[in-house]
């Protein structure tokens, strides 16, 4: 059974272990902001000061200003932890400092509002729970027979695919894949709560546990053994957040839609028959690749498209660039998001791809904005939309 200490680390001890090599200068937001107060090693230095015994109260207040500012300028892309020469668990540190900021009443009003929305309405938009299934109606799908049906596989739709018009095609695409391959699946429907990802990213593991417990109990009631999602935030919450807060109780296997599609292709159930003539590239979402180590499944699936022209982005897999949209940065600094995003957009342009596929609604949204801003002639698709196109042909 997990206890609250499982996700707590000794901040001071970790900060003292930093060897100051500066490798974390690859941090995408530090690269834009330039001041070393935003560099992970600089944040650790501030943690060292903030928690040091000898610090005077007025100095602590001063340190807290820059420390809390820096901690919310982070996209939680995990590039720093990945490269850290001494393997410091930096993500846990960032989450915990965000909680320290919460305790001190130093969250921005927008973040607080999101937090309260999620807590009270169980979705990130603060919209009524009854609208959770609106995506199906809009796509002309009747999901009543699937909703809350007993099945071993559940499709977890997630807040963005459920409520956001921009993501309107994602959930219908996943449903098409599952139906076509005759997977016996269920959805939680109005019982689905936010996975808790924004709360985990804000370090709120105690509150996050309420969400984890609710979703877990509902899934268990339906006899679910495997859960599939097309959202990298939900995927990370299930893979990392839920085991932390629920311990061994969380025994449901978690799959990204690309993992399930890969499995179905290998079993001969999913056939990608239609060629896609456009050149395709794939943007690895940080939460899939660096947080959860998912690298091959999306590539395996794309490879199955007949006559596919696939080109990796210059920075790919574990070195993939961050889109800028993660870690709740959109709430805190949208200009910074587009600055960070501009580097990814340059790489997409360099690749000369005509379709950029990804596995994360946040990436999709951010890339769409960047592509539009830069006037690129590139189609931005969720990988489930790409699979459907190869499965059914362009409609």
């Amino acid at each position, binding site marked *: 059974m997990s206890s609250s200490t499982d996700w707590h680390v000794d901040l001071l001890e970790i900060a003292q272990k930093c*060897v100051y090599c500066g490798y974390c200068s690859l941090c995408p937001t530090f690269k834009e902001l330039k001041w070393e107060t935003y560099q992970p090693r600089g944040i650790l*230095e501030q943690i060292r000061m903030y928690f040091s015994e000898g610090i005077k109260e007025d100095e602590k207040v001063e340190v807290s*200003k820059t420390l809390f500012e820096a901690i919310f300028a982070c996209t939680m892309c995990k590039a720093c932890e990945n490269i850290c020469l001494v393997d410091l668990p930096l993500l846990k540190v960032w989450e915990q400092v965000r909680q320290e900021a919460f305790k001190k009443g130093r969250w921005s009003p927008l973040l607080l509002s999101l937090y309260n929305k999620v807590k009270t309405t169980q979705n990130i938009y603060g919209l009524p729970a009854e609208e959770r299934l609106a995506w199906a109606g809009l796509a002309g799908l009747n999901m009543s027979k699937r909703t809350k049906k007993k099945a071993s596989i559940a499709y977890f739709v997630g807040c963005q695919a459920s409520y956001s018009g921009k993501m309107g095609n994602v959930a219908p695409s996943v449903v098409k894949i599952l139906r076509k391959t005759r997977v016996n699946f269920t959805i939680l429907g109005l019982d689905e709560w936010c996975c808790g990802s924004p709360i985990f990213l804000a370090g709120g593991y105690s509150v996050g546990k309420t969400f984890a417990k609710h979703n877990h109990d509902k899934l268990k009631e339906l006899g679910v053994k495997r859960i599939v999602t097309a959202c990298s935030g939900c995927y990370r919450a299930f893979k990392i957040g839920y085991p932390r807060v629920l311990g061994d109780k969380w025994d449901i296997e978690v799959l990204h839609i690309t993992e399930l599609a890969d499995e179905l292709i290998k079993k001969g159930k999913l056939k990608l028959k239609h060629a896609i003539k456009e050149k395709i590239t794939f943007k690895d979402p940080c939460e899939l690749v660096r947080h959860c180590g998912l690298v091959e499944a999306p590539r395996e699936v794309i490879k199955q498209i007949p006559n596919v022209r696939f080109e990796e982005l210059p920075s790919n897999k574990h070195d993939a660039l961050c889109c800028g949209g993660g870690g709740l940065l959109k709430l805190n600094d949208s200009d910074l998001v587009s600055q960070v995003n501009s580097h990814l957009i340059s790489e997409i342009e360099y690749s000369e791809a005509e379709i950029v596929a990804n596995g994360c609604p946040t990436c999709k949204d951010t890339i769409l904005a960047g592509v539009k801003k830069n006037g690129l002639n590139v189609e931005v698709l969720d990988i489930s939309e790409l699979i459907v196109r190869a499965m059914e042909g362009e409609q």
Partner: protein
Amino acid sequence: MTLKKTTRTRFTRYLSKNFRDDYTTLQIYSRDMSDLPKVVKLFVGNLPDGVIQVRNTEDMQKIYEIANETRVPITQRGGGTAGFGGCVPYKKGVVVDTKGLESHFLVDPLELTVTTSPSIVFSDLQRQLNLEGFSLCSYPSSFHSATVGGWIAHGGYGIGSIQYGGANEQITALEVVLPNGERKRYTEFDDISLFVGSHGTLGTITEVVLKIKFDIPLKHQGCTFDSPSEMLKGLEQLSKINPFSIWFLNPDHVTSFNEVFGYNLPKSYVAIVSKEVSFEEEEKEFKNLFNNAIRASGGQILDRRYIKDIWDFRFKGFSLLGECTDYLVTEVILPVETSEKFFRKIISKFKGELHLEGEMISPTHYSLLIYLLFEEKLSEIKKTILNLKLYKITTKKSRAKGFPYSTGLWFSGYYSSIYGKEQYKRYQEFKRKVDPKNISNPGKVISPRIKFFPLVRLKAIVKIASRLII
């Protein structure tokens, strides 16, 4: 020195948000990779009065103008990754962070050069070059964090230096803002070499033109030696086969690699030799030359399985520091021919704690990174004593004919040991001409006078202390 209100106003009026002097920012910019021992801090004004993000050449000219008029020292800072205190203020003043400099990138494929900003980090530059089929010639193992400007100003070497030389040999042109505010472009080797290793004391580098090469694949071979003398003989032989890099480790370092990364390398002196190889015949030739060199020096050839893994850890040597509770690091340059005794001496002096990592920086010399790793936390006193011991090892004139890697603050006063008396004379003349008020990174290269005891220079104090303490 604390900035006068009028001086501060001049900086803020010109730089607006690019000037900061809040408590936290000042603290963060008061150190580099090695934080100063507490006792040293008593004598050093390492806490700046302000920090500036310089955006372009015009900014830099204005900063020098204000600095000259108000006598405020400025200290340039790139990645802040060197451990010699070069980017740490000695007399407070203003730190000029070069990371804010406008970035640019222009490859000349005919001349094989790239024009770039000094603030670019090596790995970023290499990525951009690789996309166009080119590569850097030589780069430090702090590839992921060091800036090009910092490497040049600190007089660096690195991977590829045995074939292509150190920072000095990589540059075809430098644009510099001199401390008197003049903006100059240098293209002659003699002029450029003044800025290499002078730690920004002669001006701030604002643009660099570096030599580049085609991105030729590297092939690696590995070997082991039973003793330092065999290894040094091996280095001499291997240098003759025109390698791109020769990198070596001592047995204790190898053991740590085994423990941390789960390798099973033989506990001996291990060297990895890399060479640019374009086609199969060249690879065969490399193998033959390598085998002959090893045979001639009495070494053994390392099982191929290990080699790729070790090469991947070229940039990760420091990760071993995470495995110990305390550590000290220094670096020295030594000639292969005369350093056997030195090698034996330090091994016997620091038995068990000593980890060595070397890189051939020319066919005759190697740089030796000396780590002392400890399982327990060192007291301030013990740390200071050990630092002094390392200082003595690095600076004492011996038959080994070694010299410190760079001057910075720690080894200020050793410029002529590194670059020769002639060059030092040229350096001094130039310094007098362009920076009569000594506002550009004071305390570096030329040993500074000590706070409270202005008759004494830092070099003398540390030298005496290092000799007495032993």
